[in-house]
């Protein structure tokens, strides 16, 4: 009999073990329901926020693509604008104008921005009040509304001291002033990312400060600087307000040049002009123009991302 049923002692042991297991399992699995709910709701809110942000972007792109589809053809790139013949109208002068503007901005902003960043990072004594003032104001300038730069450009570049007139170069200068603070900040970030040990290593060999900056710090910072410049430029491409003030006329049927004084235009300015016309054909053109601009921007940003991944230095 004892061999067929467990002895009372082993039975008790089995019960005790089973009980202990159940208690352990319980304490491991029995998370309060309210905690589970709170966690899920929080996650849902986060997902909603992400979805809304992406949905807004997607809606704009899809809307522009659908609406602009009928106007999609190479005419967009090759033809000039027309008020009478929307089927034949395109963006060529505006596209050329935008490319010229960007070129001018790059030529102005890279040497100025990088030099300023090198000064602030490598030479400026941060304990001096004037250097701190400069730093603070560069950061503030990055947040100044673009229309104010437009007025500045009108008063000092188009008229006033520089007196260039309403030419494309004036537009480039104005946009360059607009993005300069951003370029300075991005370049400083890139320069600061070069570890001090690299500078010390170079200086300890008897290199001068300038040799150290020129041959160690700047080469190591270039990928970051270029990325920052491209991102700043893509902001400049989209700017309309300051350009309107410094002479970007909306209707220019010929290719603009840097110094030509018979007017110039840019993509966003022409899009704005088309969109504000009552006829459907022009609204379609405006949508197609948005797509053209987005493609230009995406191409630039993709290049910036590629550049950063390709050359980014792991220290």
């Amino acid at each position, binding site marked *: 009999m004892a061999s067929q049923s467990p002895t009372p002692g082993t039975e008790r042991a089995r019960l005790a073990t089973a009980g202990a297991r159940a208690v352990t399992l319980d304490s491991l699995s029995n998370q309060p329901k309210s905690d589970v709910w709170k966690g899920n709701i929080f996650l849902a809110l986060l997902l909603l926020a992400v979805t809304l942000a992406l949905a807004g972007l997607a809606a704009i792109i899809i809307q522009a693509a659908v609406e602009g589809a009928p106007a999609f053809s190479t005419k967009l790139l090759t033809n000039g604008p027309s008020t009478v013949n929307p089927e034949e109208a395109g963006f060529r002068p505006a596209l050329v104008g935008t490319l010229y503007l960007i070129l001018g901005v790059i030529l102005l902003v890279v040497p100025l921005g990088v030099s300023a960043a090198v000064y602030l990072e490598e030479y400026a*004594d941060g*304990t001096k009040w004037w250097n701190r003032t400069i730093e603070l104001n560069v950061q503030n300038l990055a947040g100044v509304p673009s229309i104010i730069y437009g007025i500045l450009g009108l008063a000092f570049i188009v008229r006033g001291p520089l007196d260039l007139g309403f030419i494309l170069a004036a537009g480039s200068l104005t946009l360059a002033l607009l993005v300069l603070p951003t370029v300075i900040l991005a370049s400083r970030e890139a320069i600061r990312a070069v*570890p001090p*040990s*690299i*500078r*010390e*290593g*170079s*200086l*300890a*060999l*008897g*290199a*001068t400060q300038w*040799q150290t900056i020129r*041959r*160690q710090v700047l080469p*190591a910072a270039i990928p970051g600087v270029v990325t920052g410049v491209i991102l700043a430029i893509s902001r400049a491409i989209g700017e309309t307000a300051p350009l309107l003030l410094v002479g970007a006329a909306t209707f220019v049927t010929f290719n603009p040049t840097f110094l030509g004084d018979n007017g110039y235009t840019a993509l966003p300015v022409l899009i704005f002009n088309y969109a504000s016309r009552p006829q459907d054909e022009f609204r379609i053109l405006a949508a197609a123009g948005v797509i053209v601009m987005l493609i230009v921007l995406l191409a630039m940003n993709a290049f910036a991302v590629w550049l950063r991944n390709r050359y980014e*230095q*792991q*220290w």
Partner: protein
Amino acid sequence: MHSDGPNDERGLSQQIAVTREPEQAGEDIWAKDKVFEVNDVTVSYGKKPAVRDVTMDIVRNEVTALIGPSGCGKSTLLRCLNRMNDLIPSASVEGEILYHGQDLYGHKVDPVQVRKMIGMVFQKPNPFPKSVYDNIAFGPKVLGMKDIDERVEKALHGAALWDEVKDRLDDNAYGMSGGQQQRLCIARTMAVEPEVILMDEPCSALDPISTGKIEDLMAELKEQFSIVIVTHNMQQAARVSDKTAFLIVELDATDENRWGQLVEYDETGKIFTNPQDSRTEDYVTGKVG
């Protein structure tokens, strides 16, 4: 740069004299060529002294070790010897550091020229993000030296690295092991042919095998260079150095201010077997850390 430190406050520290008794050593160990004469040097960051009243001579073609607990100012002292402390705006040096009799902090002295003659190897290997070749060629190039290729090869041989890297001179230095990177940094320093090499805990980031290689290297290097090494590792100081300086952290009465102080400076063997100061003895025997 004349010392006019707070003489009246020194009290105890003034009584600490560096042991210099030639008759005990049998021959005058200090009579050799002096590279540095450090006289009553106090280094401060802002108003706080990091190391105070250090007086010691550093002899040519020897390895001189600076040991002591964390915060005793040994790295600070080392970085004064090639004016790397100039890079820290708040750092100031009082007293006198003579390099072959010339005041290193004299008015006409250019820190860049000082660093050409007094090279430095840092705690963490800091190769440039360039190829092995360019890492070494950089120094000679900026100093306008000729025969860059030969210099690179000679420096790599000198740092016992040539056989390991001769087939990958164009590879990025960041692909090397930590020990190789540190020897590359030593080779880089040797390539500009300084007279003195300062080493700031050069092995603290390395494994024992790499450390051993660098220690062997130092024994060879001292034929050609004078070496000053800061180390946390007392065994290392005992193995590689000819003379050892022991520094401690002093606290003032309020326990708020602390600074480094040179306790004893002598031949390495003496410091480790027969120290004159009980604090040195406690430290080297491991009674206090």
